[in-house]
Structures are given as structure tokens and as C-alpha cells.
């Protein structure tokens, strides 16, 4: 199932924050979205998740308009790790991760053995199993982000969207979670779309990059083709050198002060 955006516009308070975006997101790829602050990255994600609707243009998923799906169907298709979130109520970590299974559990039903297995597995892999009984209100920002990451993995969807999901994490946990996300990329059935601030992290994980600037797509395509000093200067207004690093087995960017 692939996403297709055609000529999508979105205005907020009279200002065009997404301007004529056309994209195709195919399964089997890890997409990275990079761009300066306020360039419309998060708004594009809001549009993909149907939190907002475009004023112009069309978004299709699996050939159907996004609006044709029920909320529950969408919840089984797309999982999101948001940029920031606040939890005011003292839920236990285990309960928050289990909420990722709600789209599959009948309204008054109990979690099945499979639900429990999935929750245990993702908690283990996201390294939150040790705090299963703690209250989310008592966790640090990074710990909470890992919990929400685990919840999104528990949703077990073909599309996983990360909105700067590793921004509060130490490098060890950041790499661990990005590895987990990368494992969700499967031909035919697994797409990951992630917004990054750190271009080197994006370069290390993404097969494709989407560079955004002022609501428009400045460049998109294969990471090797798109990540060049020219595009970086155009989008971020910086002088940069891009080279292949043998140790990381990936493109690497360094900047001139």
C-alpha cells in the first residue's frame, strides 16, 4: 500500500504552510524528511495522519482517498510517534503501550494472548520493559519518548511515522530505536517516514530523502542523489561537505563555521 499526495496545499491563518506538494511513498523504503524549522514538515505529517485536511489537492492511500477510511482502519494502517506530548494522568507504562493494541481489541474485550505477546516484545526491544509498572507522569522526557515509540510499534502498522522521535534520546537509545524502525521496512508491506533534525542520522538510515523548504519540496529521491552540498546550501543556507564515510557505511555531512 503506498501513499500518494497530489498537488497538496494547506493554509494556516492565511499563510500557505504546505504549497503544492506531490509525493509518492512506496513500501520497502525508509524515507527521511529534512528541512529548516517551520518549513511544513510536521504539517505534512498531520495531513498524512488526517489530523488536518488539505484545502486543495488529494491524498490517497492504497489507491483510495484518505477520507474513505474509518479512524479505526487508519489506526491499523498508520502509527505515529509525535514530536512532543504531555500526559497529565498517571497511567502505567504497560497500559500506555497496550493502548497501541486498542485498534485491534473489541470495545469491551480483553487483550488476547497475541496482544500481550506483542506488547511484551516491543517493550523489550524498545528497552522499556524495566519500567513497565512505573507511572508515565514520573518518567523523564527521553524515557517517555521511548514509551510512546513502543506504543507505536505495538500498533503493528504497515506505515510508521516518526516526527523527530529521537530528539530527546541519548545516542545509544536513538540508534537502537532507529534500528527497530528500520526493521519495519519491508518490501510490499512496510514503509517508514521520519522527520530528522540530524542530517547524518537521516543519511545513515534513509534510503530516500525529502528536502523541504518553505512548504515546498526542494528535492527528493535516492539519498545519494539528493544529499549534495548544493541542495544543502539551497535549503539550509550552509556550506557543507558531503562524503562517504567508510566507518559508518553511509554518507556523512560536515559543515563550515
Amino acid at each position: 500500500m503506498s501513499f500518494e499526495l497530489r498537488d497538496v496545499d494547506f493554509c494556516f491563518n492565511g499563510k500557505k504552510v504546505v504549497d503544492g506538494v506531490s509525493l509518492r511513498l512506496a513500501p520497502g523504503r525508509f524515507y527521511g524528511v529534512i528541512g529548516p524549522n517551520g518549513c511544513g514538515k510536521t504539517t505534512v505529517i498531520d495531513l498524512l495522519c488526517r489530523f488536518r485536511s488539505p484545502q486543495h489537492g488529494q491524498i490517497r492511500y492504497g489507491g483510495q482517498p484518505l477520507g474513505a477510511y474509518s479512524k479505526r482502519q487508519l489506526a491499523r494502517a498508520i502509527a505515529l510517534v509525535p514530536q512532543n506530548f504531555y500526559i497529565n494522568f498517571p497511567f502505567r507504562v504497560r497500559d500506555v503501550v497496550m493502548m497501541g493494541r486498542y485498534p485491534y481489541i473489541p470495545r469491551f474485550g480483553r487483550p488476547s494472548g497475541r496482544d500481550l505477546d506483542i506488547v511484551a516484545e516491543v517493550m523489550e526491544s524498545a528497552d522499556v520493559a524495566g519500567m513497565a509498572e512505573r507511572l508515565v507522569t514520573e518518567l523523564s522526557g527521553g524515557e517517555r519518548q521511548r514509551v510512546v515509540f513502543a506504543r507505536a510499534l505495538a500498533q503493528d502498522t504497515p506505515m510508521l511515522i516518526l516526527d523527530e522521535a529521537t530528539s530527546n534520546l541519548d545516542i545509544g537509545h536513538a540508534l537502537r530505536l532507529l534500528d527497530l524502525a528500520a526493521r519495519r521496512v519491508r518490501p510490499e508491506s512496510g514503509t517508514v517516514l521520519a522527520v530528522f533534525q540530524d542530517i547524518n542520522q537521516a543519511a545513515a538510515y534513509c534510503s530516500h530523502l525529502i528536502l523541504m523548504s518553505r512548504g515546498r519540496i526542494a528535492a527528493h529521491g535516492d539519498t545519494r542523489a539528493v544529499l549534495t552540498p548544493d541542495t544543502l546550501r539551497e535549503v539550509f543556507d550552509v556550506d557543507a561537505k558531503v562524503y562517504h564515510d567508510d566507518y559508518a557505511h553511509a554518507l556523512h555531512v560536515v559543515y563550515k563555521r
Partner: protein
Amino acid sequence: MSTLVVVLFGLFIASTGMGYIQIPPAAVLKIIWGQLSGHPDPFAGMNEIFPVVVMDVRLPRILTAALVGGGLAMCGVVFQGILLNPLADPYTLGVSAGAAFGAALAILMNISALGLYSVPLFAFLGAVATLWAVIYLSAGSGGLSSNNLILSGIIVAAILSAGISFLKYVADEQVAVIIFWLMGSFASKTWSDVVLTAACIASGASVFLYFGRELNLMSLGSQMASSLGVDTRRVTLILLAAASVVAAVCVSVAGIIGFVGLLVPHTMRLLAGPDNRRLVPLSFLAGALLLLGADTLTRAVLPVEIPIGVLTALIGGPFFCYVFRRQSTGRVW
């Protein structure tokens, strides 16, 4: 939960026996059993005034008190969950004041076109209009923040209480009715009050329980809920409307009774966790217990009958201060 049911039942029987005329608990049980089963034989050998006191005076009052307490507490849970705000309750959001204004208007203008239901209906309209105004005022960029909501609630409630004062001023001989009613009381409740309250609260409670899981998700934020498959707009509207109905009927039956909707959900959340599927029934029971206890206190224990709204505000006000302080500093005190 079963402990709460047992305690509530115990208080229920004890409270029915207490008052100006003391009735032993065994006699209370016999009378209720006699009424339920339709056999008047157990009344034999009993003071013949007992059944009248129990059935016509005390039971309606006691049932209404318990229902209203439970209803207000449930509303508190729902408002807090939807508005992501532990300080929200029908009283702090101004919904109670709105309902009171509507009801005072109905009393003043002697509107009885709908008979028994005209005061509750006006109370409901007042409650919904107020809730809408409060949400409209506080919905700036980035959703409904705690401070904005409480602030708007206070502003709207202040305007409404000025409105109520004006109504009292022009009310002439009905002023006593309005004032007494506003202070909140369960005195002279009838079986029709009980039936009306029970019907509204039961339907409210079933809506709350049906959407319990959605309410859990929404208490993590509407975007999170939306990405987990909740139609947040629809569910918010349904829950707010249902909570307003319950709050309005509570106010129209018993006047403004503050802080039950704040105090009870908080305590229960502390004891039993934030899962709304458990929190709603638990808060109902605890709220019923609290208000029945308070009503019994003013009716049968204290030498003078204090208006119940005054009593709960005296207990609840300091508690509200405590919660607010804890929230704004993050410390216990």
C-alpha cells in the same frame, strides 16, 4: 469496588434510620423489603408512622442525595479526561452556574409548560450554553490549556452569578425559593425527583462507560487518541453533552453543590489509577457515599440544617487549594 458498594449500602440503611424519629436498621430493612415484595405483613407490630417516614420522607431524599453525588463525581471524571485538566469539574467550569441561571430563570418566569421537566430543561440549556462559551473563550492556539479553561470558567461564572443576583432582585416573592434552591438542599425531595435523576444519570453513566476506552485515549491528548482510531470530535461532543445533561439535572434537582466533581475523581484516581473504565463507576459510588454522608450529617447530626452546598464548599474549597498548589509547584505542599 465491592467494599464501596457494601459501605454505601450500610450508610444508606443507617442514614434512613437516623433523624428526628429514630428507626432501628432492622425496621428499615423490613419496610423496604415489604415495599419491594408487596407484602405489608412485616409492618405488623411496628410504629405505624415508620413506613410513612421511610417511604415518603427519607428514602426519596436519601436516594436523590446519593444519585446527585454520584452523578457530579462522574461528570468530574469525564470533564477532567476530555479537557486534559485535573482541575475541571462542573463547578469550576461554570457549568453549575449556567445550569443554576437557567433554572432560576425558569423559576422566576414561572415556566411550567413542560411541567416537572421545565426547570431541568432550562438548567440543561444554561449548562450547555455556558460550557460552549467557556470552551469558545479558552480555545486559543494549541488547544484548551488548564489556565485558560479555569480562567474562562471563572469569568463566565462571575457574569452568571451577577445575572442570578439580578434575577433575585427582580424576583419579589419568589426570591426565597430561588435563594434556598441555589444553596442546594435535598429537603422535601419526591419520588418523581428520584426517577428523573436516576433516568438521566443512568443514561449518562452508560454513555460514559460505553466510551470509557476512548476517554482513556483522549486523556493522553486528542492527537494521540486520533492516531489510535478515535473519532475525537464526535466522541468529545457526545461525552460533553452527556456530562452536561447529568450536571444540569443534578443542579436542577439539588442546587449548586460544588467540589464533589473535583474531590472524588482525584481521590479515586489516587487510589485506583486513571483507567476511566474503572474510575467512572468507582467515582459514582464514592460520590454517592460522600454526598449521602454530608446530607445525613446536616440532616440528622448537626443541630441546625446547613445547606448542603455550603457544607461541600467548606470541605471542598480547601481541597481545591491543595490540588492547585500541588499542580502549580509540583510539590506536595
